[in-house]
């Protein structure tokens, strides 16, 4: 089980790096903010935050300063990545809503505040050892961001399905929206479970339950990301064939 979880986690991290960087490079070509925001969110939150904090927390052979530095680096990636995802939600799904930029700003402020209070309070060595302190708030902010992303993604996907039924939408784009909604749903479920365990003091890291869930969700979300943002030609052909058969 430990080997499966490690491989699944590695797959998820590598996928986040690959897809995230691919989208950042796409943003360089198109000069558009949404691809930059989603690319940064995947690379920093999915590809850096979790692995850096996991190593800082669990690599007990490392010295305390190194463990603290890894956790701090992970937290900084978490702040930047989750803020990018919140701004993506605003710019893509709610560009005209007055509350959306306010929500994004509050999310960013909450993350920065949790980070600074952890720095000024019990510090990051303590966090690396016990996973305690104000930074725990970031887990719940993450739950909120993933919930927002899930709701918006599913709402937009349902609208896209209706457009497709009238011949007004590309089935490949509809499928991409479905995969993004699935990935965000999985991220929401996982982040809620782990934040709840963290808050209740239930140790799941390294346990059979924790490793199984991590492995399953990481594999699922990684596969969704790959198929959505770096789809093989055969997969796209299959999506088009299926849409043609339905139409």
């Amino acid at each position, binding site marked *: 089980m430990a080997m499966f979880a490690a491989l699944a986690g590695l797959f998820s991290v590598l996928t986040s790096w690959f897809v995230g960087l691919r989208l950042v490079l796409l943003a360089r070509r198109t000069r558009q903010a*949404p691809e930059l925001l989603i690319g940064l969110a995947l690379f920093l939150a999915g590809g850096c935050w979790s692995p850096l904090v996991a190593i800082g927390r669990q690599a007990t052979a490392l010295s305390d300063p190194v463990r603290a530095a890894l956790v701090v680096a992970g937290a900084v990636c978490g702040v930047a990545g989750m803020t990018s995802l919140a701004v993506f939600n605003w710019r893509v799904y709610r560009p*005209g809503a007055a509350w959306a930029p306010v929500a994004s700003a509050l999310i960013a402020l909450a993350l920065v505040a949790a980070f600074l209070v952890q720095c000024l309070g019990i510090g990051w060595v303590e966090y690396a050892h016990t996973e305690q302190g104000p930074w725990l708030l970031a887990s719940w902010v993450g739950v909120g961001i993933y919930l927002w992303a899930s709701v918006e993604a599913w709402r937009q996907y349902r609208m896209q399905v*209706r457009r497709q039924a009238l011949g*007004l939408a590309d089935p490949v*784009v509809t499928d991409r929206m479905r995969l993004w909604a699935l990935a965000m749903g999985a991220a929401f479920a996982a982040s809620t479970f782990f934040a709840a365990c963290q808050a209740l003091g239930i140790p799941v890291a390294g346990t059979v339950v924790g490793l199984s869930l991590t492995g399953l969700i990481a594999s699922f979300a990684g596969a969704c990301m790959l198929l959505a943002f770096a789809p093989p030609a055969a997969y796209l052909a299959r999506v088009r064939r299926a849409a043609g058969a339905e139409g």
Partner: protein
Amino acid sequence: MADAPVFEFVCGEIERRSSLGRLEARGTVRLALKEAGLSPGSISVSEMRVVLERVLPAALASRGVENGDALCSEIRTGAARLQDSAREADTPEAIFGRLGG
């Protein structure tokens, strides 16, 4: 987000050519767009033409408007003369269309 010119045009035409009042006409078109997965703020002329052909006739019939098919057909012809210049280009569909890039 302001409503698209083609949305305003279709609502105005339905109000002018049928027994529906302003609020009923706008509500009917809004519900038809929702059923089609479209938004009044970002709908294009070509999308509205499809809605006028495949969704609005039934919506008008359900509100007791007679000859909804003929009415929608006439409005479709008029809508074809509109431009899409005011349309918001970066819709979620357009953005996700780029992300496979």
